[in-house]
């Protein structure tokens, strides 16, 4: 694990489920320290977990030669989490709508939908090779919290 920059935490991790757990735990800690309530913490950690699972499973396909990079930052206005893999790349436009009647009973395909539902902003970037997801959760100002 490396720390880079003020308040920004960055990891390079193996493509394992243990890494997913580590990323999820770090996201939960970031959310707790930012003062998010339990429901918002759950939503943020779930989105981050889904992104990490995508990177490990669909991106890197558990390849021990490929790494997952994760960074976590509280900018004061937002929580910004990036998850990057070294896989073949993901076209977000190609993902079927899991709410469509023909997809509703599928066993897979809900991860990106949940990420988009639970975060305020989601950005995809192609890395050649790989995909980077940036997940943003806006923080309420002190005035808004009261």
């Amino acid at each position, binding site marked *: 694990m490396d720390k880079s920059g003020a308040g920004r935490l960055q990891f390079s991790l193996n493509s394992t*489920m243990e890494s997913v757990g580590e990323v999820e735990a770090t996201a939960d800690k970031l959310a707790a320290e930012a003062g998010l309530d339990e429901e918002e913490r759950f939503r943020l950690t779930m989105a981050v977990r*889904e992104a990490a*699972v995508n990177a490990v499973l669909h991106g890197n396909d558990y390849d021990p030669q490929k790494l997952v990079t994760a960074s976590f930052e509280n900018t004061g206005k937002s929580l910004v989490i990036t998850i990057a893999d070294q896989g073949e790349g993901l076209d977000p436009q190609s993902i079927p709508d899991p709410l469509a009647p023909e997809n*509703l*009973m599928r*066993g*897979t395909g*809900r991860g990106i939908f*949940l990420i988009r539902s639970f975060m305020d902003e989601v950005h995809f970037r192609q890395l050649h090779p790989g995909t980077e997801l940036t997940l943003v959760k806006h923080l309420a100002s002190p005035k808004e919290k009261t």
Partner: protein
Amino acid sequence: MALTIASREVDGVTVLDLSGRITLGEGSVQLREAIRDLIGKGQKMILLNLGDVSYIDSSGLGELVSAFTTSKNQGAALKLLNLTKKVKDVLQLTKLYTVFDIYDDEATAIASYK
């Protein structure tokens, strides 16, 4: 916390009391095997008690859908009991809430199989 599954019989209905997380690598496989085992034994009435399920991810949702479909294809009825708020919210968000028969009360759920 990984998923634990305890099985009991109530009026011919197999109730699986699930506790922990239903996620990729933690609970999905256990749940799949438990359902397959019951279906293999010819059980037609299965009630999943999710009251102590603290967390479910997209893989866990997929496993619930697969369990429902597998059961239905084998002539069995799989129903859900005692959803926590988190699980209920995720099921509603993904429009799966209307797919399952869901109950808040065990006696009512058991009676629904008659």
